[in-house]
């Protein structure tokens, strides 16, 4: 807010000091662009929302009726559930101007712990479920302590723990997949988020997708309606200023990384629901997909600006483009290509919006 005020004051000063007609021309052009810029600064979810709507419109024409069918649209939601979960966790961390490269590894590790304890070691499923959730939480806590207490850069910390948790995946799983049928027999609870609700018009919602949306709503509430949420934004904007203002920034960092780890463990539950099995092989680049969703969703990699809803839209944009291009018969090579372009556009827009406060 104070930044906006400074911006308009300096603009007025420029106006007084220059030729009147030229200045008014500049002012006009500038004010239209500036008001767009200001609007986007205030509503970071606007761009991803518009892109999502445009994407849906384009593919409704290009890919025909199959794309716009209720079933297919609900299918896209199912397909982005896992990435959106990780994206929610990632958004929390990126809001504090950090990054968590280990989200995918934490998720796979939690799912392997749940599946393997239940099937291979015969642990009661309720217990292994809780231990699986704790696994994510503890992994996140370790990240948080390394960042907040030992004060290492988040990129380095999570680059390291990405490897560490990834190695633990191989150690715990023996590189073996826990089969879907075995999990179904020993612990159906682990597949519970894979159950579906049929809605009108053929749309199908999985419990996993609903859990993801609920998680997003909860985190949205925490970020926007609680003191802790405002502390997260403040810490991300300028952690030194936040600390001087009396915010326990160390506590904020630890809480954010731990919460992110826990959300990854919930994502692990949804992952077992989705693929039935607990597999050490997949989701190797899920951390990058999550960052993609966050960035396309309009959250700034420099911290302090962005939203959970934006991340949800970001994940949906990627899902809609992949699905739409595939249904239109476009090679998967060009699906990747398009996602890359979307990332660059998103960061370009972010940089441009940030100029308003410069």
């Amino acid at each position, binding site marked *: 807010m104070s930044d906006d005020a400074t911006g308009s004051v300096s603009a007025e000063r420029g106006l007084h000091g220059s030729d009147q007609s030229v200045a008014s021309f500049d002012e006009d052009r500038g004010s239209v662009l500036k008001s767009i810029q200001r609007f986007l600064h205030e509503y970071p979810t606007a761009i991803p929302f518009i892109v999502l709507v445009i994407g849906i419109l384009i593919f409704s024409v290009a890919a025909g009726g*199959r794309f716009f069918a209720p079933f*297919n649209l609900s*299918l896209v939601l*199912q*397909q982005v559930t*896992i990435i959106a979960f990780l994206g929610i966790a990632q958004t929390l961390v990126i809001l504090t101007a950090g990054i968590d490269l280990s989200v995918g590894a934490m998720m796979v590790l939690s799912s392997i712990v749940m599946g393997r304890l239940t099937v291979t070691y015969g642990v009661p499923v309720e217990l292994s479920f809780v231990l699986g959730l704790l696994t994510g939480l503890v992994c996140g806590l370790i990240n948080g302590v390394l960042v907040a207490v030992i004060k290492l850069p988040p990129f380095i910390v999570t680059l390291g723990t990405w490897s560490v948790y*990834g190695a633990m*995946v*191989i150690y715990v799983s*023996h*590189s*073996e*997949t826990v*089969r*879907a*049928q075995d999990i179904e027999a020993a612990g159906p609870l682990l597949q519970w988020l894979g159950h*579906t609700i049929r809605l009108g018009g053929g749309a*199908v919602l999985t419990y996993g997708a609903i859990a993801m949306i609920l998680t997003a709503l909860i985190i949205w509430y925490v970020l926007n309606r609680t003191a802790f949420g405002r502390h997260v934004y403040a810490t991300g904007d300028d952690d030194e200023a936040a600390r001087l203002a009396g915010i326990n920034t160390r506590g904020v960092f630890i809480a954010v990384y731990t919460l992110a780890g826990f959300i990854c463990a919930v994502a692990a539950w949804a*992952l077992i629901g*989705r*693929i*039935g*099995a607990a*597999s*050490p*092989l*997949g*989701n*190797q680049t899920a951390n990058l997909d999550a960052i993609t969703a966050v960035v396309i969703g309009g959250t700034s990699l420099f911290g302090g600006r962005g939203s959970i809803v934006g991340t949800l839209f970001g994940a949906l944009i990627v899902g809609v483009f*992949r*699905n739409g291009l*595939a*249904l239109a*018969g476009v*090679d*998967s*090579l060009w699906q*990747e290509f398009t996602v890359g372009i979307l990332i660059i556009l998103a960061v370009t827009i972010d940089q441009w919006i940030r100029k308003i406060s410069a």
Partner: protein
Amino acid sequence: MRKWTILKAAVAGLAFYGAMATASYAADIVGLITKTEGNPFFVKMREGAQAKAKELGLTLQTFAGKFDGDNDSQVAAIENLISAGAKGFAIVPSDSSAIVPTIKKARDAGLLVIVLDTPLDPIDAADATFATDNFKAGELIGEWAKGTLGDKASSAKIAFLDLATNQPTVDYLRDQGFMKGFGIDIKDPKKYGDEDDARICGHEMTGGAEDGGRTAMETLLQKCPDVSVMYTINEPAAAGGYQALKAAGKDDGSVLVVSIDGGCPGVKNVAAGVIGATSQQYPLKMAAMAMEAIEKFAKTGEKPKPTPGKEFFDTGATLITDKPVNGVESIDSKKGAELCWG
């Protein structure tokens, strides 16, 4: 001057110790370099090599890349083996062309290089290649699918769950092998996607894992709701694809599922009716044979020879199904479970 004398004495001492060490522990060093640690196929390969090396009294050093496609780690591993004075090594190349110059360096240094599973490009850049005939493995499941469908084969709708956009050798060989076995005109046998057969529903990438398999099959089901055959690059992709079929209510046997690998979870899925047929390959055997070949080379200087009529030594692929088809040789899932890996 005295400093130099001490240094010389130290060097002489070290050389003596080195000579003693070589003399008393004269075990030949051999290497095994796999693509990654995180794949049961390579884990089994390592176990096979370790058992055989122990039996033959060889010292085995194992290496792996960090991810599928990690050429740098493999280059470093080869350099380490050369400087360790290894007699030879077996490698599953992550990048079948980029590794070639380093392999030449090793062969020039006198090491025997045996390539496992994924042939080099060109294949004769190694001393020998021990591998599954992936094209043949694909052909077997293609023939089985065609035979099982009978008259309906001409109106089939086939979903292809492939590996990756860059179409590595194993990917196009299996895919094109299946098409040949099924009776599809494959055009250029070195790539898929150039065919114009109306029975092809589409190709989607899975990364060879469950999550990719599920998403890919969901997409293809959207394209062709009347799909009747699901080809999969490997069994994890098949298990993921099956989850998509299940969600769509098509797990009633109306869609034939074929795959390749013959890992134990995959063979169990054949027994459970999830996979109709799979082509089994033998990583333990590949690795054990490579250890034997290197030992023989170290003793006699003799190099292994390829299977007659092929550019590589074929370690075999066997069709596993509980619903055999006339004219396609196969074994059942019970027998397959005895031979499976992972």
